[in-house]
């Protein structure tokens, strides 16, 4: 029986590692701006080590074998950090594929005199490494998706400002879709601000909401009820003509809520409730006289 791949790998571990690192360093796509050579060496060494310890003749054909769990863990860890560091999928993929090249060239050196088993062992190794590459991609994409999800949360958070337009009057412009998570943020911010400022009126402007369906309407009704419980009144403004028609057809009853077409008319109404008056100054008149 000729040499087995796992034995070769254990024996020539250091030369595999050297070759692999050489490949990575000589590659044009080396991102030394994102990762230092030391770090690169450390993560490469860790992966080769773990692979050499866990690989044996029986599990080489089964990438899902439990023996590879530590290997997969490291690969997943590497691609996750790389996704966050801003590596491209190509660069991350090449990292693992580079290891395949290194192992194959060492194999070639060791098995020169026996082409048949070289081919057989190479095929096994390629299959295994391809599986690892796929896992690299999967975790890489997952890492990216996490970044996107985090950004979505951030957008939801910054896009619900509560503005104090007058003493006792708050305005809350809502832009985008009003889903449950968003409503939660809106409601929390609004109620908090009502307590802090001692406001008795809140204007919820929905001119930036593209469509009002029954779920959005339900959320609006909930927000209004919560505001009322706090002893403040809530005015909904920014109802466009097409939205008004749609809401009526849907059969949503908003008659218990004060609604206005524009923010300006809502503010005017708020002033009248607070018995405030906006007047032109008399100055012009006196100069004319």
């Amino acid at each position, binding site marked *: 029986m000729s040499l087995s791949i796992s034995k070769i790998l254990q024996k020539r571990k250091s030369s595999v590692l050297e070759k692999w690192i050489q490949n990575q360093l000589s590659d044009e796509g080396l991102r030394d701006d994102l990762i230092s050579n030391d770090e690169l060496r450390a993560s490469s060494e860790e992966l080769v080590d773990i692979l050499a310890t866990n690989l044996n003749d029986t599990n080489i054909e089964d990438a899902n074998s439990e023996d590879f769990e530590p290997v997969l863990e490291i690969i997943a860890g590497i691609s996750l950090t790389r996704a966050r560091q801003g590596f491209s999928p190509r660069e991350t993929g090449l990292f693992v594929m580079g290891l395949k090249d290194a192992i194959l060239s060492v194999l070639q050196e060791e098995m020169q005199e026996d082409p048949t088993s070289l081919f057989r062992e190479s095929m096994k190794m390629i299959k295994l490494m391809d599986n690892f590459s796929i896992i690299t991609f999967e975790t890489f994409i997952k890492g990216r998706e996490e970044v996107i999800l985090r950004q*979505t949360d951030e957008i939801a958070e910054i896009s619900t400002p509560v503005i104090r337009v007058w003493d006792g009057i708050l305005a809350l412009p809502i832009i985008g879709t009003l889903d449950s998570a968003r409503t939660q943020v809106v409601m929390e911010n609004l109620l908090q601000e009502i307590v802090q400022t001692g406001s008795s009126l809140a204007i919820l402007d929905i001119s930036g909401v593209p469509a009002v*369906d*029954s*779920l959005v309407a339900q959320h609006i009704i909930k927000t209004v009820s919560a505001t009322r419980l706090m002893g403040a009144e809530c005015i909904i403004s920014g109802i466009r003509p097409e939205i008004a028609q749609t809401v009526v*057809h849907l*059969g*949503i009853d908003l008659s218990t809520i004060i609604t206005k077409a524009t923010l300006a008319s809502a503010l005017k109404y708020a002033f009248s409730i607070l018995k405030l008056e906006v007047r032109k100054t008399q100055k012009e008149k006196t100069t004319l006289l």
Partner: protein
Amino acid sequence: MMVISLSKDVMRIIKDQDVVPFRNRVKEKATKIKMGLVNQTKLITAASELVRNMLKYGNGGEIVIEVVSRGRENGVRLTFKDKGPGIADISLAMKDGYSTGKSLGLGLPGTKRLVSEFDLKSEVGKGTTVMIIKWANG
């Protein structure tokens, strides 16, 4: 008269984040056939209701977005297919104010009022298919 499909798009809806791109796609199609603003809003609201139902009760599914034509009329046809639990009593589900979830119970009946054509098929345990058409001038 025959309804002819002029273009066909399929979108998969799996999570809440898919709702907005889907709505934009519907709007795009509606604008293309010069649907008025009011009808556009009605269509988008109806689509929004159904897609939310699909996510909430059916665990997501597939939507076919089509531009259709019947004689001189153009319209948008949306077909929502899910493999959810299905609706046991359709006539009850179509009643205003009835909901198995904690919503207003206006989704299905409201949607029917917003669109030109509405067709709901459901089999308990297999899934639900809802087809709606909104004509540009309907």
